[in-house]
């Protein structure tokens, strides 16, 4: 997950930050843990988490589109 985040967002999360966020997301019902696969434990988005993520990305997308349009006019 750390590698994935670093690859697509360019941010290197620390282990404390990752698990702090993960526990909060699980507590809020936005992600859920799946059974262990060997030593790794995968997580997946819940339906609530998916809706929340979609809403957040849609909002960001709107902000990015407006921002780029304004920057492009200069």
């Amino acid at each position, binding site marked *: 997950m750390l590698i994935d985040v670093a690859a697509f967002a360019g941010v290197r999360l620390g282990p404390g930050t990752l698990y*702090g966020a993960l526990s909060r997301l699980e507590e809020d019902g936005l992600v859920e843990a799946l059974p262990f696969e060997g030593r790794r434990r995968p997580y997946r988005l819940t339906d609530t988490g998916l809706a929340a993520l979609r809403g957040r990305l849609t909002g960001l997308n709107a902000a990015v589109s407006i921002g780029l349009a304004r920057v492009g006019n200069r």
Partner: protein
Amino acid sequence: MKRIIRLYPSAWRMRYGDELTDLLEEMPATPAATADLLRGAVTLHMRAFVDRIAPRLVAAGGPSMPTHPLQRHPTASALIAMLITAPTLIFVAVSFLAYQLELPGMQAWLQPFMDGLARAPRIVDLFLLGAPFLAFLVAALPLVGLRLERVDGELRMTLALRARTLNLLVLAVCVVVGGFLASHLLVEFLFERP
């Protein structure tokens, strides 16, 4: 680095400790990762504390506040605090105008009072210095409720805070006045005394 996991809240550690341990075994132990782990432990303890306290503050308008006289009369407490700190406030304000801003005529006008103060008993100095701190307590007490109770065999402490504009204003005045005077005396004591 794995030892740091012991600093995490026990309930959290039971749920995520093994996963985090596995992750740490695959990572190099860099100073940044160590600092991040420590920060995570502090954050989770704070979160656990807030999660424990917040529902009690929210439920039914918060826990019942102890009702000592100051809490039943917060406005009166603020006014009493202002009266206590008023001499120091006036002293600091006038001294500031005379010696920092050097307003014309102020130093000459103030000199007899300063001479009198130099001859006055030590208790007057102590009062001027201590008054803002005493006033701070008087103004702050109505804003703080602390209750200790035993529930199911364990000792439980509940802290309730409330914000009242007048009291907060007086607190700010006390901090500014007391801080100014204390820092001034400290500088004088450390650097200007022979």
